[in-house]
């Protein structure tokens, strides 16, 4: 059961563990919104060590305004970046 729905504002957890992590460094701590609820998949962080990665985790496409990701972003305000992120990396966030 996916915790988040399209349009929900979410923040990527600010954690930096070693291991096989599919949450890109540049997006940690950033806030965006759910663009798409994807299927659930086995956790790659566990699969990487030969374990089964179960239970499957919901995966989301999260859309971020580029101006909120890069302090020096030089493009227009409408430019965005979508990143696929697993639910356990996301926290609920209200943007004021």
């Amino acid at each position: 059961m996916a915790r988040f729905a399209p349009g929900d504002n979410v923040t990527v957890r600010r954690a930096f563990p070693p291991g096989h992590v599919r949450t890109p460094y540049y997006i940690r701590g950033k806030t965006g919104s759910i663009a798409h609820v994807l299927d659930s998949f086995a956790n790659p962080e566990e699969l990487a060590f030969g374990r089964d990665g179960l239970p499957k985790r919901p995966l989301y496409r999260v859309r971020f305004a580029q101006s909120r990701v890069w302090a020096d972003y030089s493009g227009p305000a409408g430019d965005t970046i979508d990143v696929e992120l697993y639910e356990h990396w996301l926290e609920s966030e209200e943007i004021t």
Partner: protein
Amino acid sequence: MSDAGRMHHDMGGRDAGPVDQGGHSHPEWEKRVDALMMLLSNNKRRLIGVDELRRGIEELGAENYSKMTYYERWVSSITHNLLEKGIISSDELGRKMAEVEDAARAGGEKD
């Protein structure tokens, strides 16, 4: 903000130069590496998972990652994973590598 928690393969946002848009034609051994990876990870065998192969590359370390080509990294990861799982041993691998090198050298001398 320091990059202390960033792993070398995790490249988004780093400073880098212009994109070299040229390509290279793929020699036979690179195609074989692609094929080998597919054969080992496909549903028929599932010997090594794709994430295990990726982790193997990530664990090469920053210097190796930078120095090695794409296919050199893949063949190293495939080999390390097979060794780790005990599917092949270093001993037999070393002997076989010497054998193929000798055969190639002998083939070269014939020309």
